[in-house]
């Protein structure tokens, strides 16, 4: 077992908590489920229990191209039909995912990173404008996750770039889900 398996387990636990909570909006649970699927495949891969690297890569790509925008839409437009109904959350996800698949097929490798970064940046800007501290902290954690991973920051031999991605994503999701729950109350 390596550090990636542990940090992915942490992310998996956080996503399970969000998905299992009926108090969260359907779209938040939907995006958490996609991140969770990628995290589960990561755990299986990095523990060596069932290494499925292609599937892990596929779900990670879906997370970047479809789950991040869905998460951003959920928090920025919390009253929208996308945030409140499974039906529209899944339509949003399928369409965003389709664009991601086309980009992947055409070798536009930057598409996933770009979409994830723009989504999280929009979330942070919205939090700043709304003076929403908790959303700002959550968004910043997600932004840190993406930037640290993209810049391949590591603490050898303890932490790899993927660990920063997993840990900061988990932190960001906890804060954002707490924020979304408070907004719903």
């Amino acid at each position, binding site marked *: 077992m390596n550090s990636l398996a542990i940090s992915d387990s942490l992310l998996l636990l956080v996503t399970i908590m969000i998905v299992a909570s009926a108090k969260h909006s359907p779209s938040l649970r939907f995006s958490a489920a996609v991140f969770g699927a990628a995290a589960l495949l990561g755990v299986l891969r990095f523990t060596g229990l069932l290494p499925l690297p292609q599937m892990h890569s596929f779900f990670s790509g879906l997370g970047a191209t479809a789950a991040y925008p869905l998460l951003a839409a959920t928090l920025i437009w919390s009253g929208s039909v996308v945030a409140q109904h499974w039906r529209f959350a899944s339509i949003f996800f399928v369409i965003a995912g389709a664009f991601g698949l086309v980009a*992947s*097929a055409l070798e536009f490798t930057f598409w996933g990173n770009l979409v994830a970064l723009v989504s999280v940046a929009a979330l942070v800007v919205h939090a700043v404008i709304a003076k929403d501290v908790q959303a700002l902290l959550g968004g910043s954690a997600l932004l840190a996750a993406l930037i640290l991973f993209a810049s391949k920051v590591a603490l050898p031999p303890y932490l790899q770039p993927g660990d920063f991605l997993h840990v900061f994503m988990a932190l960001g999701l906890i804060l954002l889900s707490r924020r979304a729950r408070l907004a719903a109350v």
Partner: protein
Amino acid sequence: MPEFVLSPNILVVPILIALVVVELGISRAMGRSVYSFQDSITSINIGILSQFVNATGAVISAFMYAVIEMKYGTFEWDLANPFTWIFALLLYDFMYYWVHRTGHQVNIFWASHVTHHSSEEFNFSTALRQASTGFYFKWVFYMPLAVLGIPVQVFIVVGLIDLLYQVWVHTRLVGRLGWIEYVLVTPSNHRVHHGKNDYCIDKNYGGIFCTWDRIFGSYADERLEEPIVYGLKKRLHSWNPVWSNLHYWAAMFKKAGEQENWRNKLMCFFAEPAWSPDGNSSPKPLSEFPVADEVFVSRAPLAIKLSGLAMTLFSAGLLVLYLGSKQAMSAELQIFCATTAVCTFALIGYFWTQGNKKELQQ
């Protein structure tokens, strides 16, 4: 002249035409009328048109599938093992269920699929009435098969099996089939799918297996005491294959243009087909629509009808030539063939509908 290749698409054409002829013959022998001339010819024309368009659409779908399978395909599958094929067919059919359900319940996708439901008859020719605009979204739903690594050739074959299976269920001549109704899509439960009676709406989406409908709560049995009325609640009233593909798109964009805010504009595309700005998404009951005693029939003179038939035969010939020689054809020649077919169909539709002008104005 470009080299001619006898592709599977071409081989299927005579089989489908033979099926139509056999059903027509049997229905006549039984003293039943299940075909009307213009409706059936229009179904065939719509089918020919879709073949021209989908020849390209199928390539795009196969390309997307092949690339995703190559990049993310997780498992190796033994093509010699029957389990591979059975599993692929089951999974394909499961995904087909969701493609089909989405095609009925999301307006922008219904805009494509509505073409298949625009016939007011229900016979083998209705099976040929396929949309020309559906290829842009269907491929997405089959990506799970690609990620599982099911080879593209298996995907294409099971896709063809699923498609061809669905031809025979478009008939009124076969009654209920006992225990088979519990497992497979049959003419009886597919008649329900094509009905516009209130109990038929949004039911029976399965391709080969109706099990998915039973699991996900969309199954309905045929009610023998309530004859099924086929077609769209808001009747198409046209034999123009091009318009039958575009009429709903036009109406959808018009409706979106009339909305005052962006939310409602987007809802026109992504909500249920019955959605209205007051928030109601329930389909209107059939009783709220004008009742018609007969299917829409052309008032055009016999000569015009027969010339339409001749033009259909010409287009069918053009399609065979197009499908057989496409690989060797220049892009300009392909576009010319497709455009000729589109213009031919538009002309047939125009002339056949002329006799109904007064009727339609009323």
